[in-house]
């Protein structure tokens, strides 16, 4: 039997996981960036102070990069407070997580540590290990030169080669570089043709310097763009009449793809319906993997009310998550029904519009007698307010006390005032969701939120996840 303290701890950790999954400290529909950041900072300080082990363990869960960076930073800043054991396990978790973070975020983190004056031995060792594991430092030197420079300087590291050192600290003093990429970068200062062999972001600066017309530049740099750069620039390139920048949609991750689809005007979506639908379905299929068709009869209530717009910083993010969930659930389910709050039936044409009559829509969903009901909503229910909670409560207590239907609420938006994602009802578990790809894991995590399992199970779960991450990391390194 768990003690009261354990239950509180389990609750706190779940609350923190929800926050760390959904909040990025940016403006949301209902709260601004300042409130978000303040609220998040408090949670981090609270977790670090009370449950250091669990706090570090959260790194192994599907939290977002912003919070992963914050956790790593907090852990490194308070190295002195950790025991030797804690340092060892934390160090492993941090190294694993850093390896999966995008490099620009890691360089940003190193810079933040530098500004905060964190320069303990562990920090330096972590920086050293991460840099030595980079596949191509010359590439980093070109693309993230200032980041790399600051990291090297802050951690007192000698550059891998003497030439790299010269490139980072005094780049234009040399007449020639032996490393091809560095040499290209040097030549790009004088020769237009050379810049097309550089990474897109570095080349963009040179293109401006040489006053190359945008059209010519985009056409020729297209093969050097990363997948996301292509996706991001596809529309603007299309507008100035370049066909060369064409993202391969079939390889895109699901939520990213959903965001892209929602950014298109309705006419474009109609015109490219077959292509987009196929891309979304195949992305969902990839995520579902071996679980495809194993979830039985699933009904989803998806929020496409006006608040699903998110904010100008997270444009249509909640709606994109809902759309991605729609396709993923269709892949996971045996029989699937997707109900949008606006009553629209064509998922591809969805847009944030109108109020949130969640209660009515949940009723419609329950009418289909599903074995699983998934609600994706920001938790604001306003037509009328609180109706969803009442419907769910009565369903749980009076109509389905034996829990034939499992219900889970997934919320893509962090509510700064409540330090958690907003709940619809206490009878239904709520979990924060960042990417639709995490949906299967979250549905698993949501059962903890229902209060039926205690701290012991939660710790076991987190340890398993950590072990998975560590072993995955080691395999990667061995290769």
């Amino acid at each position, binding site marked *: 039997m768990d003690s009261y303290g354990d239950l509180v701890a389990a609750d706190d950790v779940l609350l923190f996981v929800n926050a760390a999954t959904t909040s990025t400290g940016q403006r949301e*529909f*209902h709260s601004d960036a300042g409130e978000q950041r303040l609220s998040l900072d408090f949670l981090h300080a609270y977790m670090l102070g009370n449950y250091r082990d669990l706090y570090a363990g959260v790194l192994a869960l599907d939290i977002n990069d912003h919070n992963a960076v914050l956790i790593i930073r907090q852990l490194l800043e308070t190295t002195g407070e950790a025991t030797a054991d804690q340092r060892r396990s934390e160090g492993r978790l941090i190294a694993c997580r850093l390896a999966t973070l995008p490099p620009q975020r890691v360089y940003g983190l190193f810079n933040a540590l530098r500004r905060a004056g964190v320069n303990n031995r562990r920090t330096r060792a972590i920086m050293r290990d991460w840099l030595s594991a980079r596949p191509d430092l010359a590439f980093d030197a070109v693309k993230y030169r200032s980041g790399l420079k600051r990291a090297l300087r802050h951690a007192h590291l000698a550059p891998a080669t003497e030439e790299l050192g010269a490139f980072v600290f005094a780049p234009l003093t040399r007449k020639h570089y032996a490393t091809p990429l560095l040499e290209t970068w040097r030549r790009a200062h004088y020769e237009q043709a050379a810049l097309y062999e550089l990474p897109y972001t570095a080349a963009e600066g040179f293109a401006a310097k040489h006053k190359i017309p945008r059209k010519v530049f985009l056409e020729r740099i297209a093969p050097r763009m990363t997948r996301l750069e292509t996706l991001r620039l596809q529309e603007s390139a299309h507008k100035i009449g370049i066909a060369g920048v064409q993202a391969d949609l079939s390889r895109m991750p699901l939520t990213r793809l959903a965001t892209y689809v929602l950014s298109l005007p309705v006419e474009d979506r109609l015109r490219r319906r077959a292509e987009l639908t196929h891309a979304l379905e195949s992305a969902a299929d990839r995520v579902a993997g071996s679980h495809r068709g194993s979830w039985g009869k699933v009904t989803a209530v998806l929020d496409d*009310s*006006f*608040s699903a717009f998110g904010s100008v910083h997270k444009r249509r993010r909640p709606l994109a998550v809902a759309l991605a969930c729609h396709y993923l659930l269709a892949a996971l389910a045996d029989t699937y029904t997707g109900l949008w709050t*606006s009553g629209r039936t064509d998922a591809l044409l969805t847009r944030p*519009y*109108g*109020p*949130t009559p969640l*209660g*009515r829509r949940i*009723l419609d969903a*329950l*009418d289909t007698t599903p074995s699983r009901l998934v609600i994706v909503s920001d938790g604001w229910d*306003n*037509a*009328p*307010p*609180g*109706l969803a*909670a*009442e*419907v769910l*409560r*009565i*369903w749980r*207590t*009076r*109509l389905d006390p034996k829990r034939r239907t499992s219900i889970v609420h997934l919320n893509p938006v962090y509510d700064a005032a409540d330090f958690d994602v907003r709940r619809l009802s206490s009878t239904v578990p709520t979990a924060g969701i960042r990417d639709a790809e995490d949906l299967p894991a979250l549905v698993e995590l949501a059962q903890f939120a229902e209060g039926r399992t205690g701290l012991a199970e939660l710790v076991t779960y987190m340890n398993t996840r950590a072990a998975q991450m560590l072993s995955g990391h080691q395999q990667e390194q061995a290769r």
Partner: protein
Amino acid sequence: MTTLDLTGLTARPSQVWGAVRLVPLVRDEPVVDLRLRSQLYGGATGLVEVGPRAVYTSYIPHGFVATWTDDGTPAAAYGTQLSTDGNAAPAATMGLHIHRRMARRQARDRLRFLPMNLALEGYLALHFGGPSIAWEEWSQRAISQGLSPRVEEAFVGAEVSGLADALRIFEIHPNQCGVMLYVGDALASAFVVPHPDDYRALHPTLLQDLYGELIYTYAMLMPPVQDFRARISDSQIRSLAHLRTAVAEQEHDWTCFHDTTMAAGLLEHAYTWQSVYRMRRFTLSRFLPQFRLQQENYIGEAITDDRGRIAYLKTFRLSETQVRRGHLLSRLAANDWHLANTAHELGIECYQLGIRLSSVGFNFLLRQDVMDGYRKQGRTRTGRARHDQPARRSK
């Protein structure tokens, strides 16, 4: 003299943000032959649908400033106007060139906002033109110019704390053609337009509207208002169908509650209607309350169709002082601006009425010597009264 009738408009569940409550009003059939003129926005929003239309009538809500005059100087509409032709300039405009600034800051957070005020003032002046009969007490100015120009102060919506956020996060209903705006659960204004597209375009302009000082104070001081959350008693529920019925009841209950309780102050009182302009099947009229002291009082304007349904409505909640002024003026007007008769009706002396008039800011209406006489009378009478009282008690 009839009440406001919101038939055809259904109140939907309110949305709350802080002390502000917004109640959407939804129309089953939008009015399609009365639309807002698109030129008002200077072409920024392509609002009016292009298509075959039998009748096209547009209205210009007051408070919008546009380049209507031929020489390009800004002008404000003198109240709401109706026009058939998209290009014709409105009949009555008030040039703004005489004023140095469009909006003038009066105090730290109080703004005098001309376009709306002109409409408001002009509208008040239209009704209370001043004495229609030259009784001897009235000053020359009152007789020749009436109450115009009159200055009324109000707060611009942007200064009402929390209103901007509430409007931003408000989720507009499909077919929504209006809104009732409550602050601290006091009705601040009602706003109805004929078509959902018009509403969409005008939703943000609620922020530029004027609100009485009561609303401003409530927004500052009131704690967040409660949501009316749905409550379903679960003892009766046996099946999903039952639950569905209970849900429908909940929604119906809210509409009833809103119309009979929350909006009672606006809907249940009679107004004096003045028809301003008639065009095809639409009538533009303005209405005045009965000026009941220490109660909710709204002035406003409305466009009604041939069946008497509201196509356009905008109300303004008067502040306490405005109500007092309106009360005095309405009494005076009812008695043909005869001071003695009015005083008799109010149950006070003539000099007391004079002092009341001056204390609410109508000093200039009475001739200086008459006013001085009243003041003197007031001083001596009250002085004697104070002197008399102890003596009476000692008897």
